[in-house]
């Protein structure tokens, strides 16, 4: 990976137009739906996605997950940044 491949994260992450989180009762799982895309999510990933509503900063999302999982803030911050970067790369977060 080159430096330039690490995408810039939005200040207040929000799912892109046409992307939404959906609870699939048949599979008993949250799925992220987008144009020709179905991505299964679980546990922490889902908790992050549910908070990408444009109202929270990345720090606030991290704070809420630290409380939720009573986990180390550095670890959670790393996980959140990784996941948001992946969503940006897949064009699933609003610019």
């Amino acid at each position: 990976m080159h430096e330039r491949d690490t995408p810039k994260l939005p200040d207040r992450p929000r799912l892109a137009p046409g992307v939404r989180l959906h609870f699939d009762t048949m599979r008993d799982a949250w799925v992220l739906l987008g144009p020709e895309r179905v991505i299964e999510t679980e546990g922490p990933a889902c908790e992050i996605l549910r908070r990408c509503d444009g109202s929270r900063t990345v720090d606030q999302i991290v704070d809420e997950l630290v409380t939720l999982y009573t986990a180390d803030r550095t670890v959670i911050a790393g996980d959140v940044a990784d996941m948001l970067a992946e969503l940006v790369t897949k064009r699933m977060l609003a610019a």
Partner: protein
Amino acid sequence: MTTPHARAALPAPLGLLAELTHRCPLACPYCSNPLALDDRADELDAATWTRVFREAAALGVLQVHLSGGEPASRRDLVEIVAAAHEAGLYTNLITSAIGLDIARLARLQELGLDHVQLSLQDVDAARADRIAGYAGAHARKLAFARSVVERGLALTVNAVIHRANIDRVTAFVELAASLGAGRVEIAHTQYYGWALRNRRALMPTRAQVHQAMQEVERIRQRYADRLVIDLVVPDYYARRPKACMGGWARRSLNVTPSGRVLPCHAAETIPGLTFWSVREYPLQAIWRESPAFQAFRGTDWMAEPCRSCALREVDFGGCRCQALAIVGDAGATDPACELSPHHPRMLALAEQDSEDADIHYRYRGRPVRAAVTATQTR
């Protein structure tokens, strides 16, 4: 012969292609719709579609693609979109934009439409309108695309690629980006229905395909931070077949305007298959038990070279309809695969068609030009 055990192992479908009508103001020669179209009088009504959407959601379907023909030709499109959304489905409208005004688009958005996919025929209006067989279509499509984006709706631009526009793949992506699309499909023509009939006028040369594939790779990097670019690959010049539909009766269903349920868009070209209708059976029974869905499901139907191939559960033997069209046997290996004994013939067909200097399209529902008739017997 569906044992309870086999039923449990059957995966749930993810997608439903709902062909609301075969009516369409355009007559694109690359259309993969069947040569014999369903009549308006036979179209399912909105109440039946509502039931189908509920049954689809209960079966595990997550996304519905409202298609056609032109879905906006249905006066009850608003009701149909609302029903799809209420069933909990991700609702994608596949449209030419012709016949869909902004007031109706706004209503669809209010009722939960998730995504719009708009077809463009070229980047240049005169060329695009000639392909669509409809004067003024391109300008209306561009205006519509801007309205979709202004309203905050997600937009995909779909560009079907063939000999007359393959040299402008990069320009297609640039145009889509300038319109604010989030996604572009560079979809090389798949030769079924009208496209198969027009193959001689549509097939690009091998050199053009090679160039276009390289262009897509370059422009993907250039637009990585702005657009998703999805590619539907041209398989006549390929070495391996596409995993058509992700495998027969494995991931999605296709409901025709009059209610027949198909494992894929072109399945009705295959003789001897029995299709069940949503008018007579619940969708779940059709998915699990209908003869057409069972015919090529899994790998038991395969002959050699597929049967012992390490990739048999990767590409599922390719496309049944293409095997029928080229080899004359829907149970044969897709001749796009270089392991098929018919592969050289398929390649030769493509090369021969691509060398035709004249481009005469046979448009659906329009008189055939004399110059075209002369080529029909080949």
